[in-house]
């Protein structure tokens, strides 16, 4: 018998953990690839996507069935990714100080083109351009163009008004357009 998503969540809310596997299987790939786009590391993306599923399960009793699980889950995942990126930046600042406290630049091996399926020049440039965007600009491009979500869904996930979705998307695409000028 095939259960609807709401029925599965209802079962999970009653403590029937085995049903959660169906939700995980449904969203695991989009969660992993979204996290990969956000943090640019396959290992971190795997850890973050799984951590988001664990946190979602632990809070599932508080989930209201009239909302979409995907939006709620992606909010958890987005927050985890942003928090991870902040920690990573702080770590990089601390770990690159020499004995006198001066900063030593270290090569960043995240957002490597080897993570791409197709390594055409245009894709490499886009991947580099995405990595250079601010976290909030990258997240909105990933949600819209990679996950194919509507502005309404994005506004629910990021908890921002529709107008802000449009203006943030405009800022992100304007910056990407400049960085991709050679390919336009």
């Amino acid at each position: 018998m095939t259960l609807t998503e709401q029925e599965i969540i209802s079962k999970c809310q009653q403590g029937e953990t085995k049903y959660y596997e169906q939700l995980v299987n449904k969203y695991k790939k989009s969660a992993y690839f979204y996290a990969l786009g956000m943090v640019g590391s396959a290992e971190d993306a795997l850890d973050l996507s799984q951590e988001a599923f664990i946190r979602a399960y632990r809070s599932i009793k508080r989930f209201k069935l009239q909302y979409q699980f995907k939006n709620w889950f992606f909010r958890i995942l987005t927050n985890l990714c942003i928090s991870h990126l902040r920690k990573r930046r702080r770590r990089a600042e601390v770990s690159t100080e020499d004995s006198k406290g001066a900063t030593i630049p270290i090569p960043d091996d995240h957002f490597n083109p080897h993570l791409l399926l197709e390594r055409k020049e245009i894709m490499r440039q886009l991947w580099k351009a995405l990595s250079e965007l601010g976290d909030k600009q990258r997240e909105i491009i990933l949600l819209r163009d990679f996950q194919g979500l509507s502005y309404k869904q994005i506004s629910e996930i990021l908890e921002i008004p529709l107008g802000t979705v449009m203006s943030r998307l405009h800022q992100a695409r304007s910056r990407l357009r400049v960085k991709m000028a050679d390919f336009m």
Partner: protein
Amino acid sequence: MGCEEFEVLLNGYIDGELKDPDLKRVEEHLAGCPHCRKLVRDYRRLKEVTTEMRFKEPPQDIWNSYWQRIFHRITRGAGWVFFLVGVVAVAGFAIYEFATDPAVEALQKLIVFAIFVGLGLLLISVIWERVKASKTDKYKEIER
């Protein structure tokens, strides 16, 4: 309304998210503005490229074991709760039995009580120190 104000709406336009009256205003503006028409072409091209970008799939065994790792973490949490509840119950029972045992002298009870109170105070002081230090510790993000 100048081009700059329309530019924000152009993304809504290419994403099919605009409704009247904004949609009509943008269409009318585009009909007479080559600059914004060029922007629409660029954004459409950019969108084509971004939607085409794909990442490599991780090995199949990652997907196969994906749920198991989550399941173990979820159930481990419940295991810890049961374990801690059990430990607290057993410890409480043992303390009660020891404290009410008429065969044990009051002095012995006092010594054992002092040892446990001392250990408890030491533990609290270490935890308190760690909590205070973590607020200003710039190395706390470093994995040990």
